[in-house]
C-alpha cells in the first residue's frame, strides 16, 4: 500500500511562488498526472515528493511515513523515500555502459554482483533492450535512451515512480507508442506513479487522475472524464481538449419563464430545464463554453427559429483526417466546430446547432463554472 498524501505544500523561489497550498491524495497503484503549462509548479511538486527540493511549508507522506515536513523540520533524503525518477532528458550517465547505468542504483546500495547481474538482465528483457547492454549512451537513439532511464528506475523495485515529462524529447510517433507501453508497464508493475506533463493528450490518455496546475495553484483535480466534461473553470476547460473549447461572452437574461444567453450577435435559449444555479446570475456577464464537437450543422436548414441554432459564416475548412475542422463566424464571434463531413462551401452561411446538454456557463468575474 503506497499512497501519497500532500498537505498544504508551499514552495517559493525568492519572490516567485512555485506552488502554493497544494493538497492532494494519490491512491495506491494510481497513475496520477500533474498537468499544466510550463512554470505552473508541477515539476516543483514532483521534486518535493522526490526530496530533491526542500519546501517552505507543508507535509508529504509516502505510505504511512512522513518524509517531508517543513514544520517539524523533517526532510528525508531521496534515497530513503523508496522512489525512482525518470527525467525529461533521461539523465543517463554518459560515461557508463547501458548495463552500468541500470546497475548503478543497485551498486550504490551494495547489492551483490550476482544479484545485480540477474536484476539488470531481467529489467533489460522487460524493456526489450537486452541486446544494448554493452553499448554507451551516445550510441543509442532517443527511444533507447528513454528505456535505459526507465530501466534504471524499475530495477530497484521502487514504491513510487516519479516521471518528469519522460516522453517530451521523443518524436511524435515514438511518443504515442511509448505512451501506451508505459501505461501497460505501470499496470503490470502496479507501482504508484506520479507523472508530470504539459501535454493534455498525454495526461488524458494515461492518467487515472489528473491535477491541473496554474501559477502554483491547483485548478482542478479529477479523472480525465471529469476534467473534460465538468471543468471547474475556464482555464481547465480551455487547457483540456483539442481543438480548444469555444468561449463566448454573454449576458444571462430572463425571458418569461426561460433563461437565455445573449451574445449580442445571437441568442441561445436554455430549453425548459431550469437551472437553479443560474438564477442568481440573471443580468450578469457570463462566459458560455461549448466544445467544437458539440457544435454541428443543423439537420433542418430552416431551423433558424430553434432555440439552439446560430447562423454562421464558414471561413475555412481544415481536413484533419478523421474529421473536419470548421472555422466559423457568428457576426464577429469566432467558432470552431468539428464535424464528420459537410456540404457547405467556404464563404457560405450555415446554420449551426449547439448541443445544449453539453453547454458550460462560467462566471465572468471568477472564471469558475456555474454549470
Amino acid at each position, binding site marked *: 500500500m503506497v499512497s501519497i498524501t500532500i498537505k498544504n505544500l508551499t514552495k517559493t523561489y525568492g519572490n516567485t511562488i512555485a506552488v502554493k497550498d497544494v493538497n492532494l491524495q494519490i491512491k495506491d497503484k494510481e497513475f496520477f498526472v500533474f498537468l499544466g503549462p510550463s512554470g505552473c509548479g508541477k515539476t516543483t511538486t514532483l*521534486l518535493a515528493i*522526490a526530496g*530533491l527540493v526542500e519546501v517552505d511549508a507543508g507535509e508529504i507522506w509516502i505510505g504511512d511515513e512522513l518524509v517531508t515536513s517543513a514544520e517539524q523540520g523533517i526532510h528525508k*533524503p*531521496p*534515497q530513503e523515500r523508496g*522512489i*525512482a*525518477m525518470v*527525467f*525529461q*532528458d533521461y*539523465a*543517463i*550517465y*554518459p*560515461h557508463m555502459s547501458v548495463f552500468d547505468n541500470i546497475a*548503478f*542504483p543497485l551498486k*550504490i*546500495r551494495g547489492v551483490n554482483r550476482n544479484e545485480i547481474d540477474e536484476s539488470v538482465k531481467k529489467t533489460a528483457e522487460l524493456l526489450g533492450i537486452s541486446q544494448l547492454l554493452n553499448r554507451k549512451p551516445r550510441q543509442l537513439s532517443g527511444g533507447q535512451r528513454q528505456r535505459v532511464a526507465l530501466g*534504471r528506475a524499475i530495477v530497484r523495485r521502487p514504491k513510487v515512480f516519479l516521471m*518528469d515529462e519522460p516522453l517530451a524529447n521523443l518524436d511524435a510517433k515514438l511518443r504515442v507508442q511509448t505512451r501506451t507501453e508505459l501505461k501497460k508497464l505501470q499496470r503490470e508493475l502496479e507501482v504508484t506513479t506520479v507523472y508530470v506533463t504539459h501535454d493534455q493528450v498525454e495526461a488524458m490518455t494515461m492518467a487515472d487522475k489528473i491535477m491541473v496546475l496554474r501559477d502554483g495553484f491547483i485548478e482542478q483535480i479529477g479523472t480525465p472524464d471529469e476534467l473534460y466534461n465538468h471543468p471547474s473553470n475556464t482555464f481547465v476547460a480551455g487547457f483540456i481538449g483539442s481543438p480548444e473549447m469555444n468561449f463566448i461572452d454573454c449576458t444571462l437574461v430572463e425571458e418569461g419563464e426561460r433563461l437565455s444567453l445573449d451574445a449580442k450577435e445571437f441568442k441561445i435559449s436554455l430549453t425548459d430545464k431550469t437551472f437553479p444555479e443560474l438564477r442568481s446570475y440573471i443580468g450578469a456577464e457570463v462566459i458560455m463554453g461549448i466544445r467544437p464537437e458539440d457544435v454541428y450543422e443543423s439537420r433542418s436548414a430552416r431551423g433558424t427559429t430553434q432555440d439552439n441554432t446560430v447562423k454562421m459564416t464558414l471561413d475555412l475548412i481544415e481536413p484533419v483526417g478523421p474529421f473536419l475542422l470548421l472555422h466559423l463566424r457568428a457576426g464577429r464571434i469566432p467558432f470552431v466546430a468539428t464535424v464528420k463531413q459537410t456540404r457547405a462551401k467556404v464563404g457560405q452561411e450555415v446554420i449551426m446547432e449547439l448541443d445544449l446538454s453539453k453547454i458550460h456557463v462560467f462566471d465572468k468575474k471568477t472564471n469558475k463554472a456555474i454549470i
Partner: protein
Amino acid sequence: MRFPKLGRVSLYVLLVFLVFVFLLPLWTMITTSFKTVQDVIYTIPLEPPLSPTIEPLISSLNIMERPLLNSLTFTVAATILSCLLGSVNGYILTKIRFRGSDMIFLLFSIGIFIPYQSVLVPLVLTMSRLGLYNSIGGLILTHTAYGVPITTLLFRNFYGLIPDSLIMAAKTDGAGTWTIYRLVVLPLSLLPFVVAAVFQFTSIWNDFLFGVTLARGSEAMPASVALANLKGTTEVNWNVQMAGTLWYAVPVLIIYVVLGKYLIRGYMTGAIKG
C-alpha cells in the same frame, strides 16, 4: 574568380611568413645551443653552427639538473592539487550550492585578479612562519593557492554544462555528495582537467617571481631562477644560456604536443554546447 584565388594565395603567403617569424626565436635557440663559444662569436644567431657540439647542452644540464627536477616536482604537485581543488570547488559551487555560495564564488573570482607583487611580503612572512621558506613544499602551497581561483572558475563553467538532472538522478539512485562527485562528475571531467592542467602547468613552470622570492639560491631553487643565474655577472655564454633555455622549454613543449588536441576541444566546449 581570379580575385578570391589571389586573396587565398596572399593569405597563405602571409601565414607562412608569420609562422616563420614566430619560429625564429626557437630556431635561434636551437642553433645557438649547438654552437661552440667561437661559433657564437663568428656566426650570426640565425646561421647553423660551423662545428656542431653538444657541449653546451651537457654543461647547462649539469647546472640545471637539480633546479629542473625541483621545478618538475612542485609544478606537477601544484598542478594536480590546484586542478583537484578547482574541480571540487566547481562541483560544489554549481551542483550543491548553499547559502552564500555566490559570494564565495565572487571571492574566488577576485582572487584571480590579485597581482603577485602585492602579496610578496605577507607571502614570505607566512612561509617563514610555516617553516616553508626555501622549500619545495612552500612553492607547492603557494602555487596551489594561487591556482585555485582560476581552476575553480574553469571547472565551474564546465560543470554548468552538466545537466542538473544527472546529479538529481544520482541522488535518487542513492549516491551521496562525494559518491556523485567520484562516480559521475569526475569521470566526465577529462576535458576541463586537461585544459586546467595545461594552463596551470605552463604558468607554474614559467613562474619566476614566486620562485625567486621564496627559494632563491637554495636547494629548492626552481629552473626559471637557475636559468636566469646561468648568465654570469660579467659575461654571458650564449650557447650555454640557450642550451639551458632549450632544456627549460622541453617539458612545456611535450605537454602541448601531447595534449594539444584535447586543449582545443576544451576551449571549444564553452562555445558549442553539448
